[in-house]
């Protein structure tokens, strides 16, 4: 049995949580907590700062973080908008309407408190009241409208997610309405990647060299390719962050980065190569959080080129690979065997029947397709795209040789590889891919509808499913449709989907309360420094 005091405590906690989510109004909140015996000033403080107000919560200390790739730009709307480094900084300085919970994968309120599809082509977002930019200006729907228009006009990699939005309406300061030309169920999903920047300044020259933000940290300074500093906002609406100063340093060389971590020069890094991890795991001053990520490997077939026009040949190639052995030998700690054309972390994931390692079956399939003597082909790939990529290509090539298929490895520099890839000028393509939004639409529709023509594979049935899944507003219906899409892509072997990747966050044990995220965009707001 709860004591009355515990009972009121629990109810206050619940009210604060609901107020944070925006499901009750400010007035209802203050009335409810004062009814539980809290004084008006305390109620107002709770309203403003949440439970943080009740804790010993002043941010303190400094931590140094090194991201796997150098930060190029702070503008979260332009050419760098999908770069993880840009997203990490933006997640602290700016904010999104909704956020994907790192632990559960569910969409949670952030700058928006609620959202709903009013009709097939209209999404309405209610915005959080009382939020201000770091310069004190109130946050309003005009900021959201200006930011979205900026994303569209800059034509960066995020623009396609919003291509169907024809109009952004702002009936009042705290309501935003997105009108789309066709039904689009993915608007809330896309909103989790959409950072709002201040309407008044975003187009100023040099604004993103010294931005005014809205997130839990404010921008202090940035020396390109050297160091970026952020300071905590102690009275942030979502509560005070744990650490006062975040320093992001640039150390591109892996061994220098690992040394800096071991000597305590830096506190946190990730994206290290597999061969570095065993030694780090033995170090008692370090901790490794390993978590499934949004990234995975695939080996596509050019389905418009002989002999990969024949699904039997594609399946034969899949049966030729001993993936369990490859994972054991090459991907310990950084990858696991994939079960679908998208990773298990993604909304829309549905596990499929694995292609067993069976060289005899593979040869039989080739013989059925009239290729009993095997054939010659090639694979294009871009070094550095993922862990152990060179070793993986070599391993796959030797397995394929065993069923009589001679594969030439065509290693290409990224820009040249991208040219070849987009021109469909290849037999097979081996690469990593990341489902940025955490939603199957981002990968499946973009890459597998016939009109995208990315693999030469065309299937009207799949097109219908993917288009309907993107349009549907009901998550359950979308899940069902993606399960069908996963099955078609897997069974038709448009590609081999061998591995999904793990993200390994490595940090000094003085950091606590870090929440690992599958997105490779870690957020440090929850982190505290142990005494």
């Amino acid at each position, binding site marked *: 049995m709860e004591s009355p005091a515990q009972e009121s405590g629990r109810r206050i906690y619940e009210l604060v949580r609901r107020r944070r989510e925006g499901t009750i109004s400010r007035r209802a909140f203050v009335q409810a907590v004062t009814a539980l015996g809290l004084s008006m000033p305390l109620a107002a403080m709770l309203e403003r700062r949440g439970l943080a107000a009740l804790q010993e919560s002043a941010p303190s200390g400094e931590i140094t973080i090194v991201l796997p790739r*150098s930060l*190029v*730009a702070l*503008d979260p709307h*332009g*050419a*760098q908008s*999908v770069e993880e480094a840009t997203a990490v900084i933006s997640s602290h300085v700016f904010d999104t309407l909704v956020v994907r919970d790192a632990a559960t994968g569910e969409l949670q309120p952030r700058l928006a408190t609620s959202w709903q599809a009013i009709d097939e082509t209209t999404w309405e977002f209610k915005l959080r009241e009382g939020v201000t930019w770091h310069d004190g200006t109130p946050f309003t729907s005009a900021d959201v409208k200006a930011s979205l228009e900026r994303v569209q006009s800059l*034509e*960066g*990699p995020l*623009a*396609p997610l919003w291509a169907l939005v024809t109009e952004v309406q702002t009936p009042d300061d705290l309501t935003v309405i997105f009108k789309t030309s066709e039904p689009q169920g993915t608007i809330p999903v896309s909103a989790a990647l959409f950072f709002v920047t201040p309407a008044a300044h975003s187009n100023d020259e*040099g604004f993103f*060299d010294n931005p005014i933000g809205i997130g839990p940290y404010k921008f202090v300074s940035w*020396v*390109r*390719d*050297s*160091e970026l500093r952020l300071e905590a906002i102690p009275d942030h609406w979502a509560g005070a962050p744990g650490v006062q100063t975040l320093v992001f*340093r*640039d*150390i*591109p*060389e892996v*061994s*220098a*980065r690992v*040394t*800096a971590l*071991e*000597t305590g*020069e830096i506190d946190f890094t990730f994206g290290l190569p597999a061969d570095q991890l065993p030694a780090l795991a033995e170090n008692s001053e370090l901790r490794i959080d390993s978590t499934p990520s949004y990234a995975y490997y695939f080996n596509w077939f050019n389905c418009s080129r002989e002999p990969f026009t024949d699904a039997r040949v594609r399946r034969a190639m899949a049966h030729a690979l001993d993936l369990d052995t490859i994972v054991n030998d090459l991907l310990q700690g950084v990858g696991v065997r994939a079960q679908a054309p998208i990773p298990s972390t993604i909304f829309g994931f549905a596990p499929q029947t694995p292609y067993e390692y069976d060289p005899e079956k593979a040869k039989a399939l080739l013989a059925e397709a009239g290729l009993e003597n095997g054939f010659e082909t090639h694979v294009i790939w871009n070094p550095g795209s993922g862990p152990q990529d060179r070793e993986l290509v070599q391993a796959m090539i030797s397995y394929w040789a065993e069923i009589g298929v001679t594969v030439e490895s065509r290693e290409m*520099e*990224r*820009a*040249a590889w*991208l*040219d*070849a*890839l*987009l021109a469909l000028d290849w037999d097979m393509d081996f*690469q990593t*891919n990341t489902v940025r939004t955490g939603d199957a639409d981002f990968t499946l529709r*973009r*890459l597998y509808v016939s009109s*995208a023509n990315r693999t030469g594979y065309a299937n009207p049935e799949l097109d219908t499913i993917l288009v309907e899944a993107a349009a549907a507003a009901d998550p359950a219906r979308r899940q069902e449709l993606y399960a069908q899409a996963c099955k078609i892509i897997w069974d038709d072997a448009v590609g081999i989907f061998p591995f999904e990747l793990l993200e390994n966050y490595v940090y000094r044990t003085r950091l606590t309360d870090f929440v690992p995220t599958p997105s490779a965009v870690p957020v440090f707001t929850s982190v505290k420094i142990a005494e």
Partner: protein
Amino acid sequence: MTPYLLRRFAYAIFVLWGALTIIFVTIRIVPGDPASMMLGAGATEEDVAALRHRLGLDEPLPVQYVQFLGDAIRLDFGNSLWLNRPVLSSIGERITATARLAVTAMAIALLVSFPLGILAALKKRTFIDGLVSVVSLLGQSVPSFWLGIMLILVFARQLRLLPSAGSDTWKHLVLPSVTLALPLIGVLTRLVRSGLLEVMYEDYIRTARAKGLDPRSVLVRHALRNMLIPVVTVAGLQLGNLLGGTVIVETVFGWPGIGRLLVDAIFNRDYPLVQAAILCITATFITINLIVDISYVYLDPRIRLQ
């Protein structure tokens, strides 16, 4: 000297134009496209085409070339495609960092190689001479990526005396500049030694000695000054190389120099940035060469600039 300088200036313009033209053509010949790099693997053909149009990349090459030369004459290099900011401010930041590193490395190299070279020449064919030769040979042959990582392991990881990477304080400057200086020490020590040995047998040295000058002033006033020309020439060329950026050392030590910027720009097919960076590096090289040439006059009064 003025007509000489004017001629050198005209020559410099010609070299700059040549360098710019070569880079303009080569970066466009290699496969890859800035628009598709900017949009990433997810972009559709229409997206890429639209961006190419916006960037003016769909114009015929001669049109782009004329446009580019016109802009270059006005020193307007435009915005970096990849960084989305004026290329000149990016290059300015980077060249300052590179200059800091290059000048320090060169200073260390000169301060070490002169005493070593003189010592080796004076103790010709002794154990000390042999030791200096071995050390300078090693300095020249050790690859800088290996040396850099070894220095990090010893001084950052084991001894914890110096930081492993970064560029904030003088401490950050030590390891990368020593890494860069070591091969230079190798080259310069050998030059000082052989140059000194050569002039020591010249008649004027014998005369100076015969006059009864003390050995120190024979060495400093008569011998050293006369062997400076090859040393200054090589040091000048090497300084030019260092100022052009040292990609490997910059990468190993996380130093924000122009070499890394240029390589990243090339990988991203960032045409404006590559072009402006090459122009800057070429101009630096030409200027240093000019300074070296002019210094000859002061080092050796027999030389007159024609």
